[in-house]
């Protein structure tokens, strides 16, 4: 109760400084939020791309159907595999005609079907990483009637690289801005300590415990961090809303991400003020 009253009193006593601190945390977390929004949407797109990762094993024309059927069953038993579809040569031609109508004339002039039969191997979710795909492809390639295996290794590597870069950039940016926000909060707390040094001296004089003396400053850091975190979420939402209405539809961040953002603001606030209090109370 006392700590809350003193923390609010500190806000009233130096509204500009407190506002600046909360504003800087808000700005820092807002920039992290914007990057998070972009990273999250990129991730969602990549998730959809990943879900479509499949391995296509092209078969020799003289492959024995019984052996192919057995191989199909064996591949379906792989832990990483969700489904295996056999595409006959005729089905492949039909599919090509359906998916590539601009080449209809070319297909019509063909004397014989040039397309090979194939096995389309769909992977389980979370089993679409480059290493997994390559491992499964290698096992399929080992069948003697498999002529070639394709899985778009180059673009798959790029997709995963992009994801890793986006994740790392978000982490680095987040940590950088957390450090900046911490320094600002620590400065604000330091100034608050010096502004209240007479009170602190008297508190010690009459027997207040160190925990009691620290309480309002820690609470001030927590409230500043929480306020900054909330403001950042609101600002990020406004940007999301504007882009979604006027440019293209984005997906809003999951509630766990927002909670993590606000909690991060609070944690940065508490941590920065605790360090500042520990360091500067000794000087009073």
């Amino acid at each position, binding site marked *: 109760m*006392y700590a809350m009253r003193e923390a609010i009193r500190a806000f009233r006593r130096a509204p500009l400084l407190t506002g600046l601190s909360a504003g800087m945390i808000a700005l820092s977390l807002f920039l992290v939020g914007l990057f998070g929004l972009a990273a999250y949407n990129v991730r969602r797109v990549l998730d959809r791309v990943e879900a479509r990762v499949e391995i296509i094993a092209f078969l020799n024309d003289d492959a024995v159907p019984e052996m192919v059927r057995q191989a199909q069953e064996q591949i379906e038993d792989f832990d990483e595999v969700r489904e295996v579809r056999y595409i006959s040569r005729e089905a492949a031609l039909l599919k090509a005609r359906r998916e590539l109508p601009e080449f209809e004339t070319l297909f019509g002039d063909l004397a014989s079907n040039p397309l090979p039969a194939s096995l389309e191997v769909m992977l389980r979710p979370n089993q679409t990483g480059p290493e997994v795909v390559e491992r499964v492809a290698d096992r399929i390639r080992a069948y003697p009637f498999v002529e070639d295996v394709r899985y778009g290794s180059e673009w798959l590597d790029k997709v995963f690289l992009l994801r890793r870069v986006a994740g790392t950039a978000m982490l680095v940016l987040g940590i950088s801005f957390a450090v900046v926000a911490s320094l600002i909060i620590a400065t604000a707390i330091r100034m608050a300590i010096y502004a209240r040094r*007479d*009170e602190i*001296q*008297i*508190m*010690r*004089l*009459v*027997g*207040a*415990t*160190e925990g*009691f*003396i620290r309480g309002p400053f820690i609470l001030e850091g927590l409230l500043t961090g929480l306020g900054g975190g909330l403001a950042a979420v609101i600002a990020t939402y406004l940007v999301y809303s504007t882009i979604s209405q006027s440019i293209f539809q984005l997906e809003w961040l999951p509630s766990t991400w927002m909670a993590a953002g606000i909690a991060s603001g609070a944690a940065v606030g508490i941590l920065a003020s605790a360090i500042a209090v520990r360091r500067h109370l000794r000087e009073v």
Partner: protein
Amino acid sequence: MIRLIDVHKEFAKGGSALNGISFELRKGEFCFLTGHSGAGKSTIMRLIHMADRPSAGDIRVAGYRAATIEPREISMLRRKIGYVFQDFKLLEDRSAAANIAFALEVTGARPAVIRSKVGRLLAQVGLAAKSESLPAELSGGEQQRVAVARALANDPLVLLADEPTGNLDERATWGIFDLFRDINMAGTAVLFATHNLDLVRRNAGFRVIELDNGSIVFDSAAEPKGKA
């Protein structure tokens, strides 16, 4: 209740502030601590208040020992010690009543207790009519009365008064001294540091300890020097 046993205090940059100080202040006793500026009066006060530690020797206050006291115990000890300074140390943006209430708030007293105690203390120091005045609206003597009331807020066993009349005119000085004497008669021990020898001479019935260059050169309690 307060016992200093062969206490030495060295300055961080060399030189000594206290050289083998030993004395005992008993429950309910009034004692002047006199000596020139720099004789060691304030250092003794700070050591008793556990704001500093002796370089050698030991200090025992209300059951706590300077040699072994834990940091969290210091705040508990300080609730048993009232401290009054020459420069009052009041919060300028708070009324007389709020300054006194502050000492109770920060030690966790309940609002009802704070209200009744602040009223009683203001009456005790003769400032009931000025409870809402800010320190700047009070005279020096009145400000010191507020400081005394604040020092009494937690019902201390002893009042440490470090030159409490140093900033006051003669009339206010006697008013403050009378207040300390009344507090002492009610049972609170008082260690009253002053270089006002006129004040000491005119109250010859009280114990006097005189310091010079960090040593006790006179103790009217008729105990052999250096023995607690």
